[in-house]
């Protein structure tokens, strides 16, 4: 099998600017998502992900320009998520240059939306973004519940069951974020990642919690994910994409190195 595991840097974009901070050495303007995308493209990232966290609906349109400008300079796959509510939103993102669209809250509220989106645009471009949190007590069998609205609202829905349901509706990929681990740099929630990756026939992207290169290796090897997503370790220059890919490759995970 010569398909490689993927490293996906993720940029949170608010009102057209990268937030959460980014400090590449050779960037003129660290807050510009297009410049960041170009830097990652040059560094050998396997895909890019933009999450639009713009709060006001007035500024929702800005992300289309960001995607369009990125597609002008970067000839690599691009996933865009955040605020996808209608089929027209997906159409506009794809026309601007996105390859895949990540759907979160709308998929929970209206699972049939996923079915119509997959029918219209193909399963391969529908990524279901799941934010999950462990809700089982100590000593209990592990259970995770999904949260919506950027992780603020509990739903009472079991994460594994929801992932299976999304596959039935036509999802092509799952982007799985552990809310317990996000931003903590203690590694992915491997039990969660493996529970979902083993339960679904579609690729899973592990997200939330990367602090070291070993965490990336674990996400694929132990979490059974097909791709690993990370933000701060790359944004702040702790590691380069190249270092991460070589490290993973040296630790038994075939990566694209050219």
């Amino acid at each position, binding site marked *: 099998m*010569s398909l490689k595991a993927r490293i996906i840097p993720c940029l949170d974009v608010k009102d057209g600017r990268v937030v959460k901070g980014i400090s590449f050495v050779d960037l003129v303007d660290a807050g510009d998502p297009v410049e960041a995308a170009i830097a990652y493209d040059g560094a050998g990232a396997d895909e890019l992900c933009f999450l639009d966290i713009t709060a006001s609906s007035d500024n929702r349109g800005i992300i289309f320009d960001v995607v369009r400008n990125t597609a002008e300079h970067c000839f690599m796959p691009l996933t865009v998520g955040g605020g996808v509510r209608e089929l027209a939103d997906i159409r506009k993102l794809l026309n601007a240059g996105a*390859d895949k669209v990540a759907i979160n809250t709308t998929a929970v509220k209206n699972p049939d939306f996923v079915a119509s989106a997959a029918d*219209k645009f193909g399963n391969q471009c529908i990524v279901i973004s799941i934010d999950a949190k462990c809700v089982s007590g100590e000593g209990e069998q592990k259970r995770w519940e999904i949260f919506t609205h950027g992780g603020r609202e509990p739903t009472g829905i079991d994460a594994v069951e929801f992932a299976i349901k999304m596959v039935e509706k036509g999802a092509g990929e799952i982007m799985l974020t552990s809310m317990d681990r996000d931003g903590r740099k203690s590694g992915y929630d491997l039990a969660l990642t493996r529970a979902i990756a083993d339960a679904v*026939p579609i690729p*899973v992207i592990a997200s939330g919690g990367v602090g070291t290169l070993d965490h990336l290796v674990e996400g694929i090897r132990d979490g059974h994910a097909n791709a690993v997503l990370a933000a701060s370790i790359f944004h702040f220059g702790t590691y380069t994409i190249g270092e991460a890919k070589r490290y993973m490759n040296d630790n038994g995970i075939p990566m694209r190195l050219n």
Partner: protein
Amino acid sequence: MKTVIIDYGSGNLHSAAKAFERARRDSALDGEIIVTDKPDIVAECDRVVLPGVGAFADCHAGLEAVDGMEEALQDAVVNQAKPFFGICVGMQLMATRGLEKITTPGFDWISGDVVEIRPQDKHLKIPQIGWNTLDIVNNHQMLEGIKTGPNGLHAYFVHSFHLEASNNNEVVARCDYGGPVSAIVARDNMFGTQFHPEKSQKLGLALIANFLRWNP
């Protein structure tokens, strides 16, 4: 030289157009890259690109919905033998039939059906999403200067179906995904890739540049 990218309502036209524009500029080639849904513009072009994202049947229906487009395409590619580049579902449409969801006729330029990929290793996920290398079955002019094979450049795939060609001599390259999967097919002036050259960085831009220079 005019290269048209056919717009029939199937995604990612912007990135395809930009990649062709970039490859043209980088190779210092003259000419224009035009995105169009007008059959008469297809009729007067020199090269034709058919992108496509989504399901075979939907893409076929989308193409049929543009009045006169399928006729213009057949005339340009079959009668006038203009260089043709099909991308992803645009490549799959070159087949005899598509078997995704329902059975739909293709252009029948490459004899064979578009069928679901079924990796022998049951742990492999469908769709195949990501970067894979190309194993060359029959060398092709379009691959000139591009390093292929297990240590070669990678191409970006995102698909659940592939074109199973009846004639081995119409397969240019395969990739390995729990078994052989069609990556490139070709015949005469027709060339198609299952992967996305417009998303395949170095390999993709080199392939597009070769297409813009190709004299089949």
